């Protein structure tokens, strides 16, 4: 335990004294969020968007008006979910002769006035409630995921390979330090560092951008912690054999870029080919991002995201087991 502890402390000191990389760990994700929040903030839609479920012979007058976009839906709950998140301004349920608006939406209010002023048929009013989901609300879980992805893979994988290349590992090998003590110290140190920076990123961005958090903070913390555990284990797996920083860095970049693009960090995979969506499910960060979004935007509980949690836990166990078999000091 003493051996574990001294290595753990030394690694933490090393990290927090490396001010250049420390700054990078804080500044980069915050800049990214602000940049994207700024870039995607403009309300690009000029037309009102109305979802139309089902069909009837007689259509409401409003459906013939210009500058309103009507989008047919075959699934009512899907369209209502979009209405809740302000991606639609109104939903017409034609078979049930009713309409839905979001009470939080100003465009919904105006559309309702237009509907009443002109209607040839009387429709029953139904409401949903939900705050607008801005891009930043959607993007914050993605950035947390990206933080975890880079912080863990490079913070464990790259660092251990660097230790191997420059002889730090060899020096430790000459002492009674066991590899399991060394590895757990590295993993725990990185786990705490990445968790700390995830919290800092979350709190710091929230202070300025007030993004949505509709779920339970503890649930989000648990999901985040599990994702970090999974990714430090993957980082360890990369560190088991590589002898040169350049090679390890190259391979890790090769792995992180598809993960960054496919895990739904920057854009939703909705509407992409099925094979791409299936591939994304093989990536741990996808499961984190999906679970975090469900908690933060939809207010889901842990039970609702148990599938993501189970995948993360299984992957963690797999990475650790494989690393234990493969790890070499030299």
């Amino acid at each position: 335990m003493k051996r574990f502890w001294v290595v753990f402390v030394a690694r933490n000191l090393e990290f927090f004294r490396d001010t250049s990389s420390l700054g990078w760990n804080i500044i980069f994700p915050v800049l990214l969020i602000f940049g994207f929040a700024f870039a995607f903030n403009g309300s690009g839609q000029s037309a009102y968007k109305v979802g139309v479920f089902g069909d009837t012979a007689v259509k409401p007058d409003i459906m013939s008006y210009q500058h309103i976009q009507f989008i047919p839906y075959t699934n009512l709950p899907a369209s209502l979910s979009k209405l809740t998140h302000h991606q639609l301004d109104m939903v017409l349920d034609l078979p049930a002769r009713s309409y839905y608006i979001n009470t939080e939406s100003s465009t919904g209010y105006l559309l309702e006035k237009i509907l009443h002023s002109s209607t040839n048929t009387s429709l029953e009013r139904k409401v949903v409630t939900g705050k607008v989901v801005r891009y930043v609300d959607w993007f914050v879980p993605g950035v947390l995921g990206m933080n975890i992805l880079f912080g863990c893979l490079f913070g464990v994988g790259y660092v251990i390979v660097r230790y191997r290349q420059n002889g730090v590992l060899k020096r430790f090998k000459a002492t009674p330090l066991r590899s399991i003590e060394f590895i757990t110290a590295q993993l725990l140190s990185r786990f705490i560092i990445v968790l700390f920076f995830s919290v800092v990123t979350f709190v710091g961005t929230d202070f300025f951008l007030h993004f949505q958090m509709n779920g339970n903070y503890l649930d989000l913390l648990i999901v985040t912690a599990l994702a970090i555990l999974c990714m430090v284990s993957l980082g360890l797996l990369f560190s088991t054999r590589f002898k040169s920083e350049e090679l390890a860095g190259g391979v890790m970049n090769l792995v992180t870029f598809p993960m960054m693009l496919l895990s739904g960090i920057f854009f939703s995979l909705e509407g992409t080919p099925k094979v791409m969506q299936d591939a994304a499910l093989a990536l741990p960060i996808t499961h984190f991002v999906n679970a975090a979004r469900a908690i933060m935007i939809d207010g889901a509980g842990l039970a609702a995201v148990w599938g993501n949690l189970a995948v993360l836990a299984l992957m963690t166990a797999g990475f650790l087991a494989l690393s234990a078999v493969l790890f070499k000091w030299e």
Partner: protein
Amino acid sequence: MGVILEVRDLHKSYGKVKAVDGVSFSVPEGTCFGMLGPNGAGKTTTIEMMESILAQDSGDILYKGAKIGHSFKQNIGIQFQNTSLQEFLTVKETLELFSGLYPKRRNLDEIVEVCDLKEFLDRDNRKLSGGQRQRMLLGVALVNDPDLLFLDEPTTGLDPHARRDFWKLIESIKREGKTVILTTHYMDEAEILCDELLVMDKGKIIEQGSPNELLRKHFGEPAVRLPVGAVPSGAQFSCPSDERNGELRLQCADMNTTLKELLDKGVSLNGMTVERRNLDDLFMKLTGRQVDITGNEVEL
């Protein structure tokens, strides 16, 4: 004086290159044991197998008469040829880190005292001079108060002053009764520090013994050199002589006889020098090659 470490018929190959090719020797307890040879002679490979860092292809290494077990690492201290440490740690923190890895610890204040680390104890370990760094690494090797200390080319790259300081350190550690195994390509270093020497070349041991024994065995008594002008012309001597750069060189079997002969023949002893052969000469005699200050062979 018992044997602390015994090496029996050690082999290690890298591909087709036989880095260590059937090496056997024993290290007496409490001595400074030097392994000498040019770069690539197999010194580091041999010492790393003795440290249990490298696995040998074949052969045995015995510590105090028994095969090396799990506790071996707790009883030895190692200073590698090139050691990197974790960055952003001070000298003190580095010592504490390594000290925490051993069950048996030596008081850190004592180590600071022995290795003279006081003035830069709180400095980042990357900002040390070459000599300070080697002293710190020696300190790291001493944290567990080892019986057996391995030093792999500890003074390579140091300036002459720092080397001398480091030698003093090793002398004081020897006085504590520890066994020191040292590799070097500096012949003067080996001559000053080592009680017992092993000369390696191309993976094999080519000579072994104490520095004085080896020099006497290969060069006999020291030679005497005189200015040619001091010797009456036509004088003949009983021991072999040759003339070079205006000096007459006499290789004597016995110094008393030679000096008496010189005085008898009316030779003035003013300007006479006694030539003591050193290990450089020995190495050249053994291998037909010479080694320069960086450990590389010099083309003759």
